[in-house]
């Protein structure tokens, strides 16, 4: 039994531009030009058809939307101007909100105001926490280690880390239930498959090799640089925090310093590139921007800029400016992590590699 929801098209409109959907007459050009079609999926026509018919359950069971990297070939060749790539993008947003059990994701995707208020609120709370917990302010020279004692930052890291892990893992479990369990129909998967197929998650996360199947390789490289940028920052701030957040000046050849430079340049470059692209609408996948796309880019961009500024002020030996910028930096990082990773655009860092994993799992039993 398949349930048809005639209201689905209206519901989808809140998640992005999908109003061209009804123009589709199923000619199949989108699938014939798609670099991902043919192997196991019939992207994007299958998804478009599900959306057109309002087959919500089928969409929830599909991993295909995550296997699309939105190169825009389909949108460029569609004779009806349906913008299949944009429809699949919209469905990715819809799925993000469905995997999230708290319902918060749906809120921020469907309401710009809710999104801005939550981001501001998180920034405000962070500011208060910094106000209450910051260490002694040394004005003679820059003493970031004293202003932000490592044990407190560690605690903050832990709180945010646990918060993110719980949400992301529980959402991934829901995704697993929707895309694997529901498709198995009671059949089991041998345990070793779970372990063997895990390699896809690691390979895909680190190389995003599937993205390279798109015709224009530049987008894959840019995305990879951006991803390596924030992964490096993540490792620096979580694993090497005590080495990273320090008053000491490392020589220019120090790996920590090099890694720091690399990551912030990568973040600043990647976000500026993406923002200019979204303003110019130069590629099909940047033509229609959802408010959450902009929020994500702005937060990431400001994170990079304030991070660079902290370093600059520290270099110029301006203690007060360093502390203030550092606080602002944290007030941006916290909403960026707490909003985007579990609830919004950044969740794709987990859903994309795991979609491949779940897809392999679901097909390995049948």
């Amino acid at each position, binding site marked *: 039994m398949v349930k048809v929801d005639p209201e689905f098209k209206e519901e989808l409109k809140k998640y992005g531009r999908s109003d061209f959907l009804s123009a589709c007459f*199923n*000619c*199949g050009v989108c*699938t*014939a*030009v798609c670099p991902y079609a*043919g192997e196991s999926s*019939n992207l994007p026509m299958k998804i478009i058809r599900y959306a057109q018919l309002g087959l919500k359950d089928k969409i929830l069971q599909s991993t295909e939307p995550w296997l699309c990297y939105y190169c825009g070939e389909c949108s460029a060749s569609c*004779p*009806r101007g349906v913008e299949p790539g944009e429809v699949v993008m919209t469905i990715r947003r819809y799925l993000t909100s469905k995997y999230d059990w708290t319902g918060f994701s749906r809120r921020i995707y469907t309401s710009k105001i809710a999104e801005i208020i939550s981001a501001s609120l998180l920034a405000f709370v962070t500011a208060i926490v910094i106000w209450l917990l910051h260490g002694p302010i040394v004005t003679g020279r820059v003493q970031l280690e004293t202003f932000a004692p490592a044990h407190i930052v560690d605690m903050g890291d832990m709180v945010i880390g646990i918060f993110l892990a719980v949400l992301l893992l529980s959402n991934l479990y829901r995704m697993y239930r929707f895309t694997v369990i529901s498709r198995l129909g009671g059949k089991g998967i041998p345990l070793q498959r779970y372990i063997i197929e895990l390699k896809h998650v690691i390979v895909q996360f680190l190389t995003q090799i599937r993205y390279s199947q798109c015709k224009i390789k530049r987008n894959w490289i840019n995305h990879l640089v951006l991803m390596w940028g924030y992964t490096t920052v993540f490792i620096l701030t979580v694993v090497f925090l005590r080495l990273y957040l320090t008053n000491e000046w490392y020589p220019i050849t120090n790996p920590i310093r090099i890694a720091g430079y690399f990551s912030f340049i990568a973040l600043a470059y990647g976000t500026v590139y993406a923002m200019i692209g979204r303003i110019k609408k130069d590629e099909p996948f940047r033509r229609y921007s959802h408010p959450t796309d902009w929020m994500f880019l702005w937060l990431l961009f400001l994170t990079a800029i304030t991070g660079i500024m902290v370093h600059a002020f520290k270099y110029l030996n301006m203690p007060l400016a360093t502390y203030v910028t550092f606080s602002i930096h944290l007030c941006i990082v916290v909403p960026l992590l707490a909003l985007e990773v579990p609830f919004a655009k950044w969740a794709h860092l987990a859903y994309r590699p795991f979609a491949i994993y779940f897809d392999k799992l679901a097909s390995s039993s049948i």
Partner: protein
Amino acid sequence: MTETLNYDVVVIGGGIAGMQASLDLADMGFTVLLVEKEPSIGGKMFLLSKTFPTLDCASCISTPKMAAVSHNPLITVWTYSEVDGIFREEDGEFRVKIIKKPRFVDEAKCTGCEQCEDACPIIVSSENNFNLIGRKAAYIPFETAVPKIALIDMDHCILCGACERVCPADAIDFLQKPKTVDVRAGAIILATGFRLFPAERKKEYHFGEYKNVITAMQAERLLSPTNPYNHVLRPLDGKEPMNVAYILCVGSRDRTIGNPLCSRICCMYSIKQAELLMGALPLVDVTIYYMDIRAFGKGFEEFYQQAKEMGVRFVRGRVASIDQLDNGDLVVNYTDVENGGVFKKETHDLVVLSVGIWPNPDVAKLFKDERLELDEHGWIKQTEENIRPNATNIPGVFTAGCATGPKDIPDSIVDATSAAAECADYLRRIRNKAVGVIPVEVR
């Protein structure tokens, strides 16, 4: 040198619609000047093989019409002539400026013996055969041309004088110049027709680059009684095709090239060609890739079903791209929509692009004192589409045939007759002339 002539109507375009409108108006007693820019009247219809869905011979229907037009005492035919401007006179009538292009052959002397054609050493692509074969620089457009007079293609002529030496009528005249003539007319009929979609614009089909990708108009020539190869052969290597693909809606219903309109004809002419191909090559396999089959007219659906029963394979799915193999065979990439929606590749030895039809928006530039309204797609706008379909926004200017949008042959003829009636009514009021020999009096 300019001379001023007077006609009741100037009909622009000598295709099937222009010929029909001229004949109808002449039958009602009006004098007609038919202006055609090509060297012969006839338009595109007689280049076709057969008409759908009746499978009547297209040239057998159009050739008698061409003869009737040229022999009608009330119709003057100016071929190889172009309208340069249409002006509104103070008394409300039109002044039409026409350029008679030089043929470099004296029309009065030429007998159409074709000796110049045999003597000419220059070979260029033949427009009337859509580049499938060549023609000479001194040539007669085709066997049944009206008028059957030779002309010299000065763009390619090397002035060797071979034609002049063999011409028995002494008709070659290299000194001819374009002649501008002003004509007074009470009304204008625009029968400017359509142009075929330039298939090179769909880059993914590589028309022009892959020689075995041809347009449906080329396929019409291969299937017509005046087939340039005398047999159905594929252009690259002259092999007899055994597995032919048709791709429908090329240049129609496609926003990527800016035309959302249906051509109204490509479904049916492709089905017709598929049937004719099976007649010409009994062992051939024909596959038609379609989005929908729009068999809307009388007998169309039956024609479609008949093709299916004859063994034509219909595959639902728009072809995304074509690749060429080393032996000249072609691989089409498509999605098999009706069988699981999966991506497929299939090899054919000849691919026919069923091209759509596009407007001739340049017709609007002919009007110098008024502005002819076009619709959003570039066709002439029918300002009163539902009640006077042949009227334009300019009083006294009427349309016939495909000038206002895609039509098949019977519809174009009906439209032309309707235009003639509409025009006659207008002329009766403007020129106070009775229709035909029967005086009309309305009480």
